[in-house]
C-alpha cells in the first residue's frame, strides 16, 4: 500500500508540530516517515496511519527530531560562514586588493595625524558609528527581511541565516566595548605605527564584512538557495 497525498500533508503537519520549522528539513523527514510507514503496511496492511506514524517516530528516540534539527542548524551556520568567507576573499585578490590597501593606508595615515591622546577615542568612535549604521540598516530592513524569510509560505534554514545577517551585529557590537575595557585600553600604546596599522586593518575588515553580509550575500540569495537546495526552484 502506498501513502496518499493527504497523508503527506499530515506528515508535514506532524513535523511542524514537533518543532521542525524549516521546509528543507521537513521534506527530508516526511520522506523518511513515509518510507517507514509504507514498509510497516507491507507487513501489516491493517495498521492505521496514526499507529504506523507513532512507531516510526519512536525510532528517533526520546528527543524526537531535536538532534536532527540541532545538527542541521549547525551545518547550515557552517555553510553560511563559508559563503561569507568566499565573498570576503575577493577583497584580498587583484584588483580589489588595491582598494583594500588604499583604505588601510589612508586610515593609518589619518590616525597618525590625530594627536596621541585622541587616537584611541577616534578608533572607538569609528567602530561605534559603524555599529550604529548596521543597527539602522537592520531595523530599516527588518520587516522586509522577515517577509523574505517566509516568502511562498516556506522557511529555509539558509534563508534565515542570510536575512538575519548571520547575527553579525551581535559580534560587531562587542568590538568597541571590548576595546574600551580599561585594562585593554592601558595595554595598547597608540604611538606605535604598527598598532595604528592593526586598527586600520580591523576597521577595514569589519566594514568589508558588513558590506558582504548586508549587501552582497542577500543580493545573491536566490542563486545560493537554489544551489544549496535543489528542491528550492520546483517548490517555489
Amino acid at each position, binding site marked *: 500500500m*502506498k*501513502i*496518499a*497525498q493527504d497523508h*503527506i500533508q499530515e506528515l508535514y503537519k506532524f513535523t511542524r508540530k514537533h518543532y521542525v520549522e524549516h521546509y528543507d528539513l521537513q*521534506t*527530508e*523527514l*516526511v*520522506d*523518511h516517515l*513515509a*518510507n*517507514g510507514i509504507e514498509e510497516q503496511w507491507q507487513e501489516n496492511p491493517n495498521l492505521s496511519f496514526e499507529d504506523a506514524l507513532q512507531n516510526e517516530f519512536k*525510532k*528517533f*528516540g526520546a*528527543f524526537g527530531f531535536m*538532534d*536532527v534539527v*540541532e*545538527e*542541521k542548524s*549547525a*551545518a*547550515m551556520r*557552517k*555553510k553560511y560562514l563559508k559563503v561569507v568567507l568566499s565573498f570576503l576573499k575577493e577583497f584580498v585578490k587583484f584588483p580589489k586588493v588595491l582598494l583594500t590597501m588604499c583604505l588601510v593606508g589612508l586610515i593609518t595615515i589619518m590616525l597618525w595625524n590625530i594627536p596621541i591622546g585622541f587616537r584611541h577615542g577616534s578608533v572607538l568612535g569609528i567602530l561605534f558609528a559603524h555599529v550604529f549604521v548596521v543597527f539602522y540598516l537592520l531595523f530599516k530592513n527588518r520587516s522586509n527581511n522577515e517577509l523574505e524569510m517566509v516568502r511562498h509560505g516556506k522557511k529555509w534554514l539558509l534563508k534565515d541565516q542570510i536575512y538575519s545577517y548571520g547575527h553579525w551585529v551581535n559580534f560587531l557590537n562587542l568590538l568597541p566595548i571590548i576595546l574600551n575595557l580599561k585594562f585593554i585600553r592601558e595595554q595598547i600604546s597608540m604611538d606605535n605605527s604598527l598598532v595604528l596599522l592593526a586598527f586600520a586593518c580591523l576597521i577595514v575588515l569589519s566594514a568589508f564584512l558588513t558590506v558582504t553580509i548586508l549587501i552582497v550575500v542577500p543580493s545573491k540569495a536566490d542563486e545560493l538557495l537554489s544551489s544549496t*537546495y*535543489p*528542491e528550492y526552484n*520546483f*517548490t517555489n
Partner: protein
Amino acid sequence: MANSKLYKGSLNTIILKLLDEKGKMYGYEITQKVKELTKGELTITEGALYPALHKLEAEGLLDVEVAKVDNRIRKYYKLTEVGEKETVNRLAELEEFIRSMQNLVKPNWSIQ
C-alpha cells in the same frame, strides 16, 4: 549488537563506504541497507543518521540531489570528489583501528 557505543565513531565511515558502493542513496535506504548487510546486528538509529549526513554535507564530502518520487520529494546523497578521497582515507583508518583492537583482544590471533 547491544553496545552501540562500539560502532558510533564509525558511523560516518559506514555511510561514506555505502555511498561509494551505491552511488546515490536516501536516508531511509541507508538505514535499511545497514540492517540488511549486518543481518540486523547493527542498526543505525534515525536520530544519529541524519545529523551525521548533514555534518558530512557541511564538510563538503556529500552532495545532494532531489527527485519527485510518488507524491513526495526525496533527497539523495552522493559523494563529492573530496568525499571520494576521504572515503579511502577513512576506510584505511578504520582498518588500522580494527587491527589494533584485534591485537589488544586476541594478541595471538591469526587468519589460520
